[in-house]
């Protein structure tokens, strides 16, 4: 976290204190980056960053309905960006990815794992 930011005081109330808040109002950057590479079959191993996502179900009521582009990914969380930045835990939510022509529902439990480790996940089933 940056302190002593140049433009305004960090840690002021009502502001996302996250990395990537510069992109917050400019989610259009991510539009159409994947060009139909991700499909229903390979989404578990594929890149989530840049996809449009919506939280369908969650154990915590405030997380439901969050919509935005995936900005970053860690082992247990996704960072979504819409008009602000949210951090959503993976293992308690159900997420719908919007690929333009189709929508895919994924249980967040299947997505747990670091981005490069997800590639190795469950190749044999």
């Amino acid at each position: 976290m940056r302190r002593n930011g140049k433009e305004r005081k960090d840690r002021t109330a009502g502001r996302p204190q996250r990395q990537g808040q510069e992109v917050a109002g400019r989610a259009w950057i991510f539009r159409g980056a994947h060009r139909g590479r991700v499909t229903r079959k390979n989404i578990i191993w594929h890149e989530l960053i840049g996809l449009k996502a919506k939280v369908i179900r969650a154990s915590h009521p405030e997380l439901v309905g969050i919509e935005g582009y995936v900005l970053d990914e860690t082992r247990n969380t996704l960072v979504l960006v819409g008009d602000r930045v949210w951090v959503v835990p993976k293992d308690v939510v159900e997420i719908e990815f919007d690929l333009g022509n189709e929508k895919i529902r994924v249980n967040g439990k299947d997505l747990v794992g670091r981005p490069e480790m997800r590639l190795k996940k469950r190749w044999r089933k």
Partner: protein
Amino acid sequence: MGKKDIRRKEQREKKRIARERVETLFTLAERVFPYSPELANRYVEIALSVQQKAKIRMPRKWKRRYCKKCHSFLVPGVNARVRLRDKPYPHVVITCLNCGNIMRYPYLREKKARRKYASKSTENGNGPDWTS
């Protein structure tokens, strides 16, 4: 036997997906860079780890677009300097202006190929004829 084939097929599929992931990550890094260079660096980091885990070759296009030392995304003219040097051997010098690391990429092979091509074409007489 059959099992082995299946595994090989899976391996190929995995590498294909990894290649696509690296490609998308770098294009995203390029798009994000003007607004948030740190995020672009993060994407490069992920792309590198994906590439190393899947043991694939870095695409030609993106090979010189990140710093080999501090792993930051490089945009020539903004945070990288690109120069051609000829002295010990012909090479491209790319300097990362974030950390000052210098990367050299020789192009001796290309130059040799060109020299060879030029001499051959003049021998055959169908190349550009400068003598007359």
